[in-house]
């Protein structure tokens, strides 16, 4: 092989190494002796567009068959868990929301539930705050599943579903912006409740979304469900049965697509999920097709949950009554954007020295959390999102560990990919729905 601008070849102690940058597969093939060098090792990623971020896959190929697959993670490690140890408990919300950037509300809620359990105020969280949490989580689940549908469609060659999926997700992000002020990284769910109440115009917009979404879901199904290429690419691809899922720790839609109806919202309820009516969709094939059907069905169930949450929203406080924990700021929209309400500023600056001291202490120092450790698991779009939080009695977390479903589920990729075709690595990897921001934290 000579003179190629794309592929270069060099000899190393471990055999010949080709550096391939695209458009030159024939050069590589012609450079390999098919009798003596049956196997080649290919690095897929970390910048490969179909690896959902920066995931690197090392594939040992025999022709187009994957003999061994190993995933290499850590490219997006940002030390969020370590950073939390140098911020107070409330500031933690702003860090954890950045882990799994497609499911920020879940990261925040899991963290808040853990802190509340440490504080022993789980039962004091108001009904309205819990309802808003459920509402936001289910909207977030829909938006996360839509991104899954969009990116997986794109990776398997269905470009139009990518555009549609992101379009509807944008609608949800607009709702989030109305409610929290931000499209992503909200820091909206806080220990003790939520940061602020849901405005009325957001309710109207969510109602519109509930009317629109079933029609759009029908469109997706019309596009994909009967489509021969889609069926070929997903059916009997990357199969993982219940035993494999449980032993590898795979939870969420992948486990449910294999037939086990394990959903923490049902089996170990939190935030009042036991009072809502919804089903846990399952499938029995345990393949990419089953995961597609389960996720679409979950979007429908989430719509049901959002509607129920809207119906039971009653006026009331959205933060615990305990002023030693509740953030003192009374937020309001002013001429220069959102900030402390003028009444609150007037009170602390003009009337009550004690209020000012209290505000200052709680914002700069934060509250103390009694020593101990807890583990809280919630059902995130990708599976069990667990928070192991340890307090030493101080104002900052002593240790917070996230059991990230993306991280744990990615371990299953070799089991799905080995023995299959290289094209199915893409389908199988995508069906796990890994988000590397969450995986690497």
């Amino acid at each position, binding site marked *: 092989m000579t003179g190629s601008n794309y592929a270069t070849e060099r000899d190393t102690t471990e055999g010949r190494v080709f550096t391939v940058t695209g458009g030159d597969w024939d050069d590589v093939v012609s450079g390999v002796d098919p009798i003596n060098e049956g196997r080649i090792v290919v690095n897929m990623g970390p910048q490969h567009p179909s690896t959902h971020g920066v995931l690197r896959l090392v594939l040992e190929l025999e022709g187009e068959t994957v003999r061994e697959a190993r995933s290499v993670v*850590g490219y997006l490690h940002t030390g969020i868990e370590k950073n939390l140890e140098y911020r107070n408990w409330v500031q933690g919300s702003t860090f954890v929301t950045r882990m799994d950037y497609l499911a920020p509300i879940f990261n925040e809620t899991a963290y808040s539930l853990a802190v509340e359990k440490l504080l022993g105020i789980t039962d004091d969280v108001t009904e309205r705050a819990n309802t808003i949490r459920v509402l936001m989580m289910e909207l977030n689940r829909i938006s996360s599943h839509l991104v899954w549908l969009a990116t997986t469609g794109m990776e398997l060659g269905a470009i139009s579903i990518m555009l549609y999926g992101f379009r509807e997700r944008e609608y949800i992000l607009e709702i989030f912006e109305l409610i929290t002020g931000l499209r992503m990284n909200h820091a909206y769910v806080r220990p003790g409740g939520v940061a602020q109440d849901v405005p009325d115009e957001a309710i109207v917009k969510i109602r519109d979304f509930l009317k629109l979404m079933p029609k759009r879901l029908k469109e997706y199904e019309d596009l994909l469900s009967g489509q021969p290429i889609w069926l070929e690419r997903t059916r009997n691809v990357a199969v993982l049965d219940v035993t494999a899922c449980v032993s590898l*720790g795979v939870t969420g839609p992948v486990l449910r697509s294999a037939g086990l109806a394990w959903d923490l919202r049902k089996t170990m309820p939190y935030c009042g999920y036991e009072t809502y009516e919804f089903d846990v969709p399952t499938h029995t094939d345990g393949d990419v097709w089953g995961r597609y059907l389960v996720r679409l069905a979950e979007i429908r169930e989430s719509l049901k949950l959002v509607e129920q949450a809207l119906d039971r929203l009653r006026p009331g406080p959205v933060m615990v009554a305990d002023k030693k924990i509740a953030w003192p700021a009374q937020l309001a929209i002013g001429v220069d954007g959102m900030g402390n309400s003028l009444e609150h500023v007037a009170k602390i600056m003009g009337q009550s020295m004690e209020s000012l001291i209290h505000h200052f202490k709680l914002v700069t120092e934060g509250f103390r959390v009694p020593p101990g450790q807890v583990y809280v698991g919630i059902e995130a779009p990708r599976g069990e999102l667990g928070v192991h939080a340890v307090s030493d009695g101080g104002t900052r977390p002593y240790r917070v560990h996230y059991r990230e479903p993306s991280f744990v589920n990615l371990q299953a990729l070799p089991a799905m990919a080995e023995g299959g075709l290289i094209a199915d690595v893409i389908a199988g990897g995508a069906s796990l729905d890994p988000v590397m921001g969450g995986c690497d934290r």
Partner: protein
Amino acid sequence: MTDSKPTTGGVPIPVTPAGATSGAPAEFPPAAPAGRGMFGNQGTGDVSGFGGLVRPQRAVENAARPYGGYFDEVYDALEEAYPAFGEAIEQVVLDRGELTLHIRPERIAEVCQVMRDDPALRFELCASVSGVDYLGADERRLHVVYQLTSMTYRRQIRLEAAVSVEDPHLPSVTAVYPTADWQEREAYDMFGIVFDGHPALTRILMPDDWEGHPQRKDYPLGGVPVEYKGAEIPPPDKRRSYQ
């Protein structure tokens, strides 16, 4: 103004920022045991007097029977199914409605095997494995925490094993729970806990050639001091902060 101090435009600047000296930084670890003072500075930097406050520490207590709920059943079932039970269990802690069994580190894989396979226990899923560094609070300061879930009985229980920094070895549970593979690698990467019998115990989140284990409490944060008008803001673990 003395000559030894640097000046900027005639304004005297302290050589080191207040709070970055006088015991705050290296003399006791970052995120020091809570209950010592209020601001993290122990010496002359504290003029408030609050630095002398000592809050009582609540010791971890051995829980007494009955534990309540399903915990007694789990405890009895494990005692029945595991012959070396008495020797393996160091402590039982019941806190905030969660039961923690402290296991001798060398027994952890055996206990997990029984927890998974015994029909009365059936903890099929190892939900999470994580490390915690109890620097200064425990001689065997590195703790490994296993969250086990029984899908059959819908139960959760926590196992905890403690090892020392000098001998940070305990058996890997990957043969029982393959899902522990990457999570043990993370605990090794972040805390330097060595899981004997793990198929490939390498770093997973940090680069392969990284030195040290970043989530240990005595790991130096380093950080770049930020200079602002001649004064330097030290890295987070050397700043004055609330304890």
